[in-house]
């Protein structure tokens, strides 16, 4: 704590000005953010912005709270754009959120009723002009092409208009109607929601707009009845009762309406992960390969990256800049594209690798060749990253340290083993662990290359190169629509595994001392 407490003494004029400008900018941003929130009457949002701004001022106007001053900008962004979405996702893991269960019960009811609207058989199709009356309320000006009669319809009902009151343009469109204002398309488009909502009540249904130029007499064959909490179909007398456990309307004969809603299912998704044989069965074998893949990916990329960095770590080496640039190229290419290119290069009959080497190896047909192939691809994609980082790290090792080792008579290997590597690991262990974590969940690396292949005959669920994440992805999204709730529960499990391993990994390494000293 020796560095803290004296900071004010050295505050320069520049520092002060920058501070004032930044705080001013913060205030300006807050105002910019709050004005539309007030307009939208989003009081919680207003409160949040106000609170955040107050917090920022509290932190930066005080001479204390130094660490916070440095941490707050990143933390706010992290909380808003990473932590909050993750929390939301975790929250969905106790629901049946997914295709067929996306919205609320009201959404489902609306969808069911809308989907049941059909045209009344043998009813006329009208030409429509959307108009407003003196009060600005919507009126449908209708003409029945079969009879040549004109009508005006609104929420009250349908009235016939004298033929003389309606005027048509050259194209046959209704352009004017006495006593009403016919809207232009753009005007009508602005009242789109009102137009869709209007059904002019007539015997046997309502006249609804079908676009802006046609109208038809439609009837909703199904309607929600709050008294029984069910959907009724009067024509057949059938009812579907709301089931709050499954989020579906279910009939007595077991028929289920497709439009469901989101309900809480408690821990069902979690118990499914543990008890479902399809999930649990291959879990251990996938987990084992998953660890191997992540570990091997980190190891080979680090080894090659470090090797190259060491090779080029010499002053005045000829062509050093060119080598460096070429080595970094794989990292500069879009990864998803190169994954696809690599996949094609491994093609048994037409791939570049077999063609060049004169081989006939079905790379993705055998478990171990496929595994070797995906690790090789990861090596290609990832080693420039390790090369860059190692190059940076090597620069920061004081040359005196190495000189000292040399004077002590250490061979190049000894000085690397005893001096360089330990120093490198101090700064790079956190990176290696996070790289491990990244590769543990490296979805694209598998999905875009083998897609999990090879699959044992009779098992399309789990392949030899499947990672937990590609495997659960197939379970959660490969079935009948996306099951986000279940996917979230799977992710929580995977997360717990990776997190535990990483934390243990940390405690076991010397990096711990550096981090916690």
């Amino acid at each position, binding site marked *: 704590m020796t560095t803290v407490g004296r900071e004010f003494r050295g505050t320069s004029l520049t520092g002060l000005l920058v501070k004032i400008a930044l705080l*001013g900018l913060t205030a300006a941003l807050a105002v910019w953010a709050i004005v539309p929130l007030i307009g939208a009457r989003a009081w919680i949002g207003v409160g949040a912005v106000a609170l955040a701004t107050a917090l920022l001022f509290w932190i930066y106007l005080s001479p204390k709270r130094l660490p916070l001053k440095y941490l707050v900008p990143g933390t706010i962004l992290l909380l808003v754009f990473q932590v909050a979405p993750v929390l939301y996702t975790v929250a969905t893991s106790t629901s049946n959120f997914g295709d067929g269960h996306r919205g609320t019960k009201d959404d489902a009811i609306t969808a069911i009723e809308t989907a049941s609207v059909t045209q009344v058989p043998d009813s006329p199709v009208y030409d429509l002009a959307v108009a407003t009356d003196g009060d600005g309320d919507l009126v449908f000006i209708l003409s029945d092409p079969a009879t040549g009669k004109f009508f005006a319809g609104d929420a009250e009902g349908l009235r016939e208009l004298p033929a003389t009151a309606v005027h048509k343009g050259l194209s046959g469109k209704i352009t004017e109607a006495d006593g009403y204002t016919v809207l232009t398309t753009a005007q009508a488009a602005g009242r789109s929601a009102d137009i869709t909502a209007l059904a002019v009540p007539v015997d046997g249904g309502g006249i609804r707009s079908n676009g802006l130029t046609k109208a038809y007499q439609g009837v909703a064959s199904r309607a929600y009845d709050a008294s029984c909490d069910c959907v009724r179909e009067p024509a057949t007398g059938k009812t579907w009762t709301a089931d709050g456990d499954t989020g579906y309307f279910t009939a007595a004969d077991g028929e289920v309406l497709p439009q469901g809603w989101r309900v809480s299912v408690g821990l069902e998704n979690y118990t499914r992960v543990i008890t479902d044989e399809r999930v649990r069965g291959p879990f251990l074998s996938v987990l084992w390969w998953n660890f191997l893949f992540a570990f091997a990916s980190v190891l080979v990329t680090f080894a090659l990256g470090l090797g190259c960095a060491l090779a080029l770590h010499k002053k005045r080496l000829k062509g050093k800049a060119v080598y460096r640039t070429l080595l970094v190229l794989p990292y500069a290419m879009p990864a998803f594209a190169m994954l*696809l290119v690599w996949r094609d290069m491994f093609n048994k009959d037409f791939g570049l690798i077999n063609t060049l080497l004169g081989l006939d190896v079905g790379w993705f047909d055998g478990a171990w060749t496929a595994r070797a192939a995906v690790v090789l691809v990861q090596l290609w994609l990832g080693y420039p990253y390790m090369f860059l980082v190692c190059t940076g790290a090597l620069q920061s090792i004081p040359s005196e340290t190495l000189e000292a080792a040399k004077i002590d008579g250490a061979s190049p290997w000894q000085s690397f083993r005893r001096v360089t590597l330990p120093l490198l690991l101090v700064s790079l262990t956190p990176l290696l662990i996070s790289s491990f974590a990244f590769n543990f969940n490296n979805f694209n690396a598998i999905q875009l290359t083998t897609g999990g292949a090879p*699959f044992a005959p009779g098992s399309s669920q789990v392949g030899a190169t499947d990672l937990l994440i590609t495997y659960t992805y197939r379970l959660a999204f490969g079935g009948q629509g996306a099951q986000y709730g279940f996917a979230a529960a799977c992710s929580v499990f995977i997360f717990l595994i990776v997190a535990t391993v990483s934390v243990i990994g940390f405690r076991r390494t010397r990096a711990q001392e550096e981090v916690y000293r």
Partner: protein
Amino acid sequence: MRAKIVGVAVAAMLTLAVSACGAGDDKKGDDASAKEPGLVIWADDKRAPVLESFKAQFEKELGVTVKVEAVSKDLQANFVTASQGDNAPDVVVGAHDWIGNLVQNGAIDPVQLTDPQKAGFNADALKAVSYNGQIYGAPYAMENLALIRNTELAPEAPATFEDLVADAKKLKQDGKTEELLSLQVGQNGDAYHAYPLYASAGGYLFGEKANGDYDPADLGVGKPESVKAFEKISALGKDGVLKTSIGSENSTPLFTSKKTAYLVSGPWAIADVKKSGIKYDITPIPGFKGMDKATPFLGVQSFFVAAKGKHKAVAQEFVTNYVTGKDLAKALYTADPRPPALTAAFDEVKAADPDIAKFQAAGAGAKPLPSIPEMSAVWDPFGKAEAAIVGGSDVTETVNGAATAISGAIKK
């Protein structure tokens, strides 16, 4: 000292805040003009540019601004999420087999077509966009697989699949080609391209209800017929007719580079074939000798009205009264040549483009791709079973494994 700093800071902030208010007001003015009534259309990367080229015409004839947006990846899933998030477009262009999933999510509304409008469409296309007794989209183009043949290498259209294999083997023996057939399988299989052969050998995916809808309770995979059908596919794999090394990325190029005389593909491959200058013919995929016809799946590209769109009335106007017109159907054909679903447009373009009629003939009797949500549980296991069997694995075990996976994934 401290007080002074705070004072200066507050003054500076007030100044900036006031200027921010001014900026904020400006912003609002811009938004008002940007938010004027319009129509937002979502399509994939293939169709968005086609629609974009009609933007000016749409705007003139509809009288509202039109915005065409391309969603490059997972258009269907993003559309569903956007609907939930109150950010949906007004119209979506997609394949008819999305309908089941879009309906269960309440993302699209039925389209009310008049009887004359319905009569104008190809009956199969109309059936494809029907779901639970409602029509959910305005179809505009149809597509199905056919056999595309290099007529210089293979002048005769094979009558049966066995004939095809025999002719292809002869070509290969004579050193004229390197591959017997280009039918994409890929590392993890391709159920869509495998289906015609599977159907010819007697297999089916879902049974049909009395009203012609697919019945998710009657799963055909795992039935004795499906095992028999896959026996046929297994034999083709052993023979080298089907190969997992031929996938979506190289099936057409194998044909255009004359490495094979036969290609099983759809209208989307024709542009490349034409570019290569090969003389070709399009015929139905031949069935196995003495067995059923090799009927492909029928896919129908459609315009859907989003249920949660902000300008639904305009979207309905666009989809029911505008897209269903002959001129637009023809224009869409010109930009992306696939058989128009509108009979009047089809009749006009087929005179100038014989391929269109040939594809239509190849698709005679084609079953629409199942649009029931259960179908999405079939694609992956079915494809993998195909790939494994082509690769030589035991048929019964593999098919039963696929059947277990599919029925396990279908909700009860």
